[in-house]
């Protein structure tokens, strides 16, 4: 067990990796929201997804991190770039939006209200948290996934077997997205 990871005996312990990654993610997210120019917004958003992937990796969700890397950093950036290449660009004199302080106050109040519940959150990796100790879902998958499906990656066994119908729907949604884009652009071929 790694000494830097929070354990149940040390509630709300955060490691330096977490703190610095949170600072990075929040900074890039704020810049993405405030940048006037769409192109610089897209570029900084790429940096944001870098931080998110590292954060997911730190929380040991490699499948999510890989999806974030594959989709958010690469493909989404390219598709957004092509989209703004086909639209007109507005000339901005200033680089950043001016901050609307009443809105910041409202968001800050909401954030403070949500942050007040943080103390009740289970620690990362806490074996007593409801999500983890649920015998019907989480524990069932962990205990039986390999025996029932023969696949080592429990995430994949849930995606393709236990929740296979959902995945079928998602695949069809991706397929439909391609067709709808063709419809919107009034084209009949992909390539």
């Amino acid at each position, binding site marked *: 067990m790694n000494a830097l990871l929070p354990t149940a005996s040390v509630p709300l312990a955060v490691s330096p990796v977490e703190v610095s990654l949170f600072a990075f993610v929040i900074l*890039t997210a704020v810049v993405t929201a405030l940048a006037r120019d769409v192109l610089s917004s897209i570029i900084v958003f790429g940096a944001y997804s870098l*931080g998110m992937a590292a954060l997911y990796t730190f929380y040991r969700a490699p499948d999510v991190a890989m999806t974030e890397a594959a989709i958010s950093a690469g493909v989404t950036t390219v598709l957004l770039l092509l989209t703004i290449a086909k639209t007109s660009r507005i000339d901005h004199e200033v680089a950043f939006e001016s901050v609307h302080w009443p809105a910041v106050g409202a968001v800050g109040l909401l954030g403070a209200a949500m942050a007040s519940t943080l103390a009740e959150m289970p620690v990362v990796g806490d074996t007593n948290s409801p999500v983890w100790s649920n015998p019907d879902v989480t524990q069932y998958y962990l205990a039986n996934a390999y025996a029932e499906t023969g696949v080592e990656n429990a995430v994949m066994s849930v995606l393709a077997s236990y929740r296979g119908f959902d995945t079928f729907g998602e695949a069809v949604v991706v397929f439909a997205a391609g067709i709808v884009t063709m419809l919107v652009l009034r084209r009949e071929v992909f390539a």
Partner: protein
Amino acid sequence: MTVADTVVAGGLTVGDFLLYAAAGFVVLALGMTYRAIRGPTMQDRVLAVNVLGTNTVVILALLGAGLGEPTFLDIAIVYALLNFLMAIAISKFTVERGGVL
């Protein structure tokens, strides 16, 4: 007992050391964000994000080694690839605003 669990000094294992190093890399990444925010040209931003991406690849690899999960290196490889794609895509796009795409 793997190398990552070897105690260096004072209860600090090699894995902890690598995690602290990863935190150091994130702090350096925070410094580079200055260039991504300030610009002044689009190429400066792309350059900053490219350097940040290389940095993130290193962070992911260090996390994988430090947490004792070598399969996390797969994510780092995927990220290295997409970082390259992002760099050539955006830099080519900044020329004549997509006119040469």
